[in-house]
């Protein structure tokens, strides 16, 4: 499987690339700015549970549409704060029976860590979310660089937790480079 090839018309605006990365204290502002850019704060009032800061009873995955109603990113919400620095998400995408490409991701967590925008990356450039079938592999690392280990050091096998999600995304354009 090849990494997704970058296609110019799919790129998110260039300011996205200049925003701080996860780990920077201002990444929460980036989270807000993505929704500002998508026009969500100017839209008609949303239902209470559809608001950005509405916490679901259990984790849910949402699609963030921009002002042109084109899917721009995925939004993963959790019931409790999560240390998103430990999270690693790989996205596989297909239109045909077999998965054709892989997107790396850039995570933009909310200030409280209960939500996180997943930006798809093609050639390290954030891109919109194409129509198609998706398989998401999420890994939560117990051990990571300078962060405190979450597991007993004796238990060397359990270094991460992994889950996979498959879904069909019917909106937006067809990835066609």
């Amino acid at each position, binding site marked *: 499987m090849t990494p997704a090839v970058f296609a110019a018309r799919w790129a998110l605006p260039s300011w996205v690339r200049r925003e701080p990365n996860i780990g920077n204290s*201002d990444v929460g502002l980036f989270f807000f700015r993505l929704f500002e850019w998508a026009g969500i704060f100017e839209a008609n009032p949303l239902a209470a549970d559809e608001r950005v*800061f509405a916490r679901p009873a259990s984790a849910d995955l949402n699609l963030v549409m921009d002002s042109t109603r084109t899917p721009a990113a995925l939004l993963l919400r959790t019931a409790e704060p999560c240390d998103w620095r430990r999270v690693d998400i790989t996205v596989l995408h297909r239109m045909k029976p077999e998965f054709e490409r892989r997107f790396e991701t850039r995570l933009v967590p909310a200030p409280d860590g209960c939500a996180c925008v997943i930006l798809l990356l093609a050639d390290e450039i954030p891109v919109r979310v194409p129509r198609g079938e998706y398989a998401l592999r999420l890994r939560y690392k117990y051990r990571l660089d300078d962060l405190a280990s979450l597991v007993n050091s004796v238990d060397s096998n359990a270094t991460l937790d992994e889950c996979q999600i498959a879904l069909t995304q019917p909106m937006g354009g067809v990835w066609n480079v």
Partner: protein
Amino acid sequence: MSSFLPCHEPDRLACPDVFRLRVSGWIDKSNFGDPRWPINTPPPEGMRLRWNFPFLSANPGPRIGYPLRFIVWRTGDLTKSKEIFHPEVKVGHAPRTLAPRKLWREMHKRSDNRFDVGEERCDSADAVYVQLTSTSKPVQATLLDASGAKRVAVSLSPGDQFYFEMAEFKAIVFSERPSLVNVPICLDLRVNLKQSLDVVPSAIAVVDARIWTHTKLTDIGQRLSTRDLQPFVTIGTDEWDDLRRRGAAVVQATDAGTEPPDADLKYLLLAAATRWEAAVLMGWGFLDGEHPPGKGLDQIDGAAMMTRSPGIYGYQVEAQTHTPAGIVSTFSSAFFASPDPMAGLSAPAVRLLAPGPICEMQLSKKVDIGKLPDQPVISKEDAREAVYCNVGYELDTDNACNEVMFTSPWALDSHGDTFKEVGEFGSSFGDRTAIVSGFKVVTRRDFNFEIPFVDSRVWLKVAVGDHWDRYLKCPPTDEELPRLRYRGRALPLDKAVCNGKDRTVTLDLLADKTWKADRIARLLNGRIELLSKTPGVEKKELKVGSGPPFLMEDRSWGAIIDPVPSLSDQGILTGGVLQVGRFTARVIRFLPGSTGEVICSFEANPACAGERLYSVSDGRADAILSESDDSERLWKLVSEIKIFPDGTPESRSRTVPISSILDPIITSLTFRFATRLAVSRDGRTDWGPISAPVAAPYLHDPPERPELCLKISQLGVDYYGRSMLRAAADNCKELDSRFRNAVVGAHLPDQSALPEKDKVPPERLLAQLGGKGLFGPQQAFRGKALFEGFTALEGTADGEAFTIGVSNYRESDNAEGPPLVVTFIARDVGD
């Protein structure tokens, strides 16, 4: 190789002086040239002989004594009876003496790289001949003399045949093991003609060694006169009488067995060495040729006198000295000469050496050596400002007859000062290190001499001569205007004070009433430049790799550097510093190499040849190129203060607008100011060094209050109970993009019930009570939207007022302006 001195000095030896004879070729009016000192008589023709005078030297060993007479011996034409060695020469010079092959012998191998004349310390010879095979590596060779004081350096290529004559030649040292056709051979002229060559020389004259001390000039002139009795004498009567007096004193002291008066003896030696004419009149030389009829003072065998012809003749001089043991004979070294006319002198090629003449002002104070060596007396007069010029020339000659180069630097008068002649420097190649390149002998002359002023053009007067009084005046070099190395020190700044309100800065010079600009500044439109360090421009430093250093054609050094600095960096770094380990040098320029690489040329003055300036491993060394502290780019001219003709500054304080340094200025910052002297001539400006900078903090006005309408919306409450807020410019002006925005918020107490006089403005209350939000100062998104989270807002009941302040915040100096205060009614947006 700016220096050709070997890095390991050979030991200097004290060897006994050798009684040495030299003979010219045939000299007559056809090849004598114009006389150096005016005279109408044609030069008497013949072979000119001269010998040195080691008889009174006591270093080392006993003094021989002043000789009674010199007997001049001469063989017949040796070409008929002996095999004469004619060396084939590709490098060096054509032989001045052609000797029988028998007198050439193999040198003694001291090591792979060194051959000596003999095994004894003081063994010496008169010429050397070396042949490299066609497969030899190129090598450097250095000739050393017995005293270790004179040297000749030569680069030899494969197949080269090198011939060089050198008095007291002792050894040849190669830079690495050469491949030689044969062992180097040397010519030893310290032989007795009769014994070594099995020939019978005849005495052609007996020169009275003492008669001159009591003979008047008019009578002694017959020693150097034409056959029709015209003396060829240019020495004046007074000069001759002085010589005679000194000669008599020396003879008298020697005969009495006492130390000869040193000053007198030295004077005689110098007179004879610098003027063949003096040597002949003093009986320290002889002309084998034209004389007036008769035996003269010297029992000349008139019939035996030489006439112009081919052939090679051997000469030797016998000195006879009276000692308590009787008459003792001392034989000079032999010399072989041909009565063929000698070639004439010719002008050398003279090259101005890079970087050309450089002049600078120096302060000099008279210092008297005083009565005791450790108590010099320093003059109480003020130090004198004098301009000195430093210039180097290289003189090339391929004419073996050009034995002495006479050079004298000159300069034009200027500003009422006349040039004081510094005299003529004459020296033969033996006096200093010479470099041989092909048939050229290259000598270098460096002068440091006082010139009237910095705008005095300088040039070199050149003449060549030989040891036979021939002299050729050559064309002088072109006049050159020296480059000024200006070191005038400006009055430094005492302080610099910025005024944030007026946006000006006041620069005050040091209140030193005694300071006066130097003479160059007074005469060349000098002024004190007030400089500001260019804000935001850092001194450039580049890490590079440097190859091994090598000598460039202009005698500067160069090294290939990589990666290649950009053209703009090359410009910036020119004049800066190259640093490799502990080695530092000034960068002269960058120039392209033959295959696209870039060569950095730099100044270095190695103490000796082959000195390693810096070491490289695998052909590379880590290096740093850094911009000069005085680089134009780093400083900005702010203002100038004129210098009055008396050297005092026109004023000691200047106030200038800050906009002349930085425009627009948008932030507080610290400026740095300094001074330097500038002088101009011929449209060219030179600068002295930059003084120590002084700092001046500038406090910029804080940012203004944002003036716009803000729409506040509550986005929700996060997990930690912070109410998220969006403040957006609503259909009005945008937030100023030059600034970030700080947002504070508070639930302010209700003041509606308070009397008007007790009410506190919300801005002040906010300053006291306002809490910072979740984020620091932020850039408004697209000039429009700010986001912030406040815990206090979540604690504010539905329907109560909440107040936020939005202010402009300047990141560069952390200055924050007054806030725009907005109060809104909090809503419960749930969690």
